[in-house]
């Protein structure tokens, strides 16, 4: 930048505001306070896992083994990916209700396009993820360039994407080759954790990139971020595109799990992805949170369902107890959060 170039000598510090350093909070205290949401999500997840193991022990007289872990991981993969996408959009102080529509569309396309050879399947998968990104591009352009409310835009595009999905696959069906299933959600081993690890590494990279800083900055205060040189429109568009690509990926994992397609199977992901983001300690008003927390939130959601299943609760009341758990978790989280940040 065109600043006056001067010798890099430090300015004389003859006028110090305070002569010497004052007592500071230890580094760990800052880390704890600033990551309270993430740490709490991990704790709740740990609690859920312990609770589930105990419940399992009572019923089966053994601890959950490879099969239980694998099926839990495989069942959670679509939600975990959708939650990461939702998290990135929420961090920009947006929200994405079109998740369900993109998952539906991706799922439907996978059911009719996935056939035959390895290269073909890779090509189709990439194409579907790109279609998801294009869906995100539509959202992003409307929100960023059109300056429209994210909730309105994505509510409308949700319906549109759902409609396209139904058009693509009017009846549930199609078939996903078993080889595809084995690679994405191997039924014998929790290989899918590798994809999750890749996603976390990707998140850490994003966090350390100009784009990531921009996402957090506009979620904190958009006009300040713009004053600091962040391109708010581009940042938002890319955030929604990453979201769309991840929802499409979620649809592929869903198809691999079910080995078939259904153009309505993804509808629930709109709300569950938001639930996972909230449980993961991501602030719904943007600027604060972590995708790792959102992943924890996704696993908490699955674990709650598992616990309910093993506690032999009448399936008719399942959603009642899910809601109850959610409220308890959120209240608990808010209380702890207040405690950690002091009384303010």
């Amino acid at each position, binding site marked *: *930048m*065109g*600043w*006056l*170039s*001067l010798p890099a000598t*430090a*300015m*004389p*510090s*003859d*006028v*110090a*505001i*305070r*002569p*010497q*350093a*004052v007592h*500071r*909070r230890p*580094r760990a205290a*800052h880390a704890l*306070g*600033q990551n309270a949401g993430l740490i709490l999500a991990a704790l709740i997840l740990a609690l859920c896992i312990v609770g589930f193991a105990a419940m399992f022990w009572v019923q089966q007289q053994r601890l959950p083994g490879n099969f239980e872990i694998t099926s839990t991981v495989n069942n959670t993969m679509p939600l975990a990916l959708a939650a990461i996408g939702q998290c990135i959009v929420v961090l920009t102080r947006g929200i994405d209700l079109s998740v369900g529509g993109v998952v539906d569309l991706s799922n439907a396309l996978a059911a009719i396009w996935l056939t035959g050879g390895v290269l073909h399947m890779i090509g189709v998968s990439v194409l579907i993820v790109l279609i998801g990104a294009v869906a995100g591009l539509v959202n992003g352009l409307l929100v960023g360039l059109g300056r429209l409310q994210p909730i309105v835009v994505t509510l409308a595009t949700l319906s549109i994407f759902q409609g396209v999905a139904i058009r693509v696959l009017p009846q549930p069906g199609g078939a996903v080759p078993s080889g595809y299933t084995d690679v994405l959600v191997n039924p014998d081993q929790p290989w899918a954790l590798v994809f999750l690890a890749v996603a976390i590494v990707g998140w850490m*990279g994003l*966090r*350390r*990139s*100009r784009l990531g*800083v921009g996402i*957090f*900055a506009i979620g*904190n*205060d958009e*006009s*300040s*971020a*713009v*004053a*600091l*040189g962040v391109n708010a429109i581009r940042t938002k568009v890319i955030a929604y595109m990453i979201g769309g690509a991840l929802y499409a990926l979620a649809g592929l994992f869903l198809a691999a799990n079910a080995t078939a397609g259904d153009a309505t199977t993804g509808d629930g992901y709109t709300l569950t992805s938001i639930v996972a983001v909230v449980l993961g300690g991501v*602030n719904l008003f943007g*600027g*604060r949170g972590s995708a790792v927390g959102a992943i924890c939130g996704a696993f908490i959601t699955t674990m709650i369902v598992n616990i309910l299943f093993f506690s032999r609760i009448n399936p008719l009341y399942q959603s009642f107890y899910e809601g109850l758990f959610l409220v308890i978790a959120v209240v608990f989280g808010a209380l702890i959060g207040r405690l950690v940040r002091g009384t*303010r």
Partner: protein
Amino acid sequence: MTEAVSPPPPGPLPQGEGELAFAPRSAVTAIAATRVSKSFGGVRALRDASFAAAAGEVHALVGENGAGKSTLIKLLGGRLPPDSGTIQCDGRAIRLTGPAEAVAHGIGTVFQELTLLPWMTVAENLLIGREPRAFGFIRRAELAPAADAMLADLGIHHIDPRALAADISLAERQIIEIVRVIVRRPRVLLLDEPTSSLVEREVAWLFARIRELSAAGTAVVFTSHRWKEITSIADRITIFRNGAEVGTFTGIDESEAITLMTGQQVEALYPPCPALPADARPALALADATVNGSGGLGFSLAAGEILGVGGLAGQGHRELFLGLFGAPPLRHGSIRIDGRAARIASPADAIHARLGLALVPEDRKTEGLLLPLPVRDNLTLPILSRLSRLGVIRGGAEQRLSREMIRRLGIRTPSMAQPVGALSGGNQQKVLVGRWLLADSRILLLYDVTRGVDIATKHEIYELMTRLAGEGKAILFYSSDTEELAHLCHRVLVLRYGRIAAELAPPALTAEAIVAAAIHDMAGSDSGDGLAVTAGDGHAE
């Protein structure tokens, strides 16, 4: 305005013999605005205004609120485009499409509204856009040490770079905002009211930085409402009135400047305090309250009295004022209103007609007014139930009461339908006071209400306060301006560590006595020259 075309020489300007380091008329113009205009809706903030600052000078921009100073800074800093007219940088006309582009031209701006990102750390805020990187990725572990080094270089050791911007005090946020701009050593530095939330020591720090930059050839433009500061640092002063410049001066005195700023003579800044009747009954009595961690705070405030509260920042003033208003309530202590014990658990209790307490905070934007709503609605909000019949607001009565209050307080607004956010700061304060008068409040808690308010409006607020005291209102008045306390109050309590360190009444009540009581035993623990800065100044919410 545009006489110079050559870029400024790198480094300090050559010293002339027997004259100033620069001669304004022949010096290099670093930044200029020529016949710029800017309107917001129907309001013309700037009309054909011109301004120029030379490289290496410190140029103060003074004027009442609403004179166009902030708008001019926003145009020069690239935050707003002018409707007409041109901006020149180093003699060339430039078009700024945004603050980032102004930065690219070497123009660094500290706007009046703070722009720190609240949920990011001090280090992230300081280094945004220029973070230490490896292989293209930000090295997050190095952010805090790099920020620490940057702050230490500038003589700041008390701000923790790992803290969130939301968790540091207002003064600290202002300092970080300034640091973020000056570390880039801009060729043009624009500061819009940089000192309004700073205490003396911090101002001294800022001025030392300003002198270093101007010695290196930076043109520094700043606005302030504190005349002492202006005369101590500015080489030249440009006065603005009604959206255009009145003129540029050297060596002008305060009363001349005020006359030029207001277009009228302000006789005496402080109106005389009305005499306190000998039999004044206590309106508010506080006993044994715990503030700032220490207990035993108590005082009594009589009807018709202006009781000042002074002291250094961070001594519990804010906690006391918010506590009396129930937001949140004081942890201990008993409050008696008109001799009867009162329980104030929330602002709703405090406002209640029987108690009649009212708080006017310094931060009107977040703590009192609904900025997008009209003046009328902001005035009548707490008394809507009284103005309603069967749940429907009687529009006629609302209009009448609002019109009366606007006239009585001299609120300068084009109409009562004007959104409060469009008024100047001082007039926003008046709307808040008016609201509580309509609600029949008898005890007014005024917390630093004149901060960042121009002199003419300050004068009106002072007159309003003395008039209200004369009408029997009890006023508890905290101010960071000790002159104000000394001139307006019947008595002043100086708080230190949450306790009353001194109670001053005439003739012992002077600004010097307040400062002395405030720093009495603190002077020894710090370096002792002037006011010490405490780590938190009580502005955190």
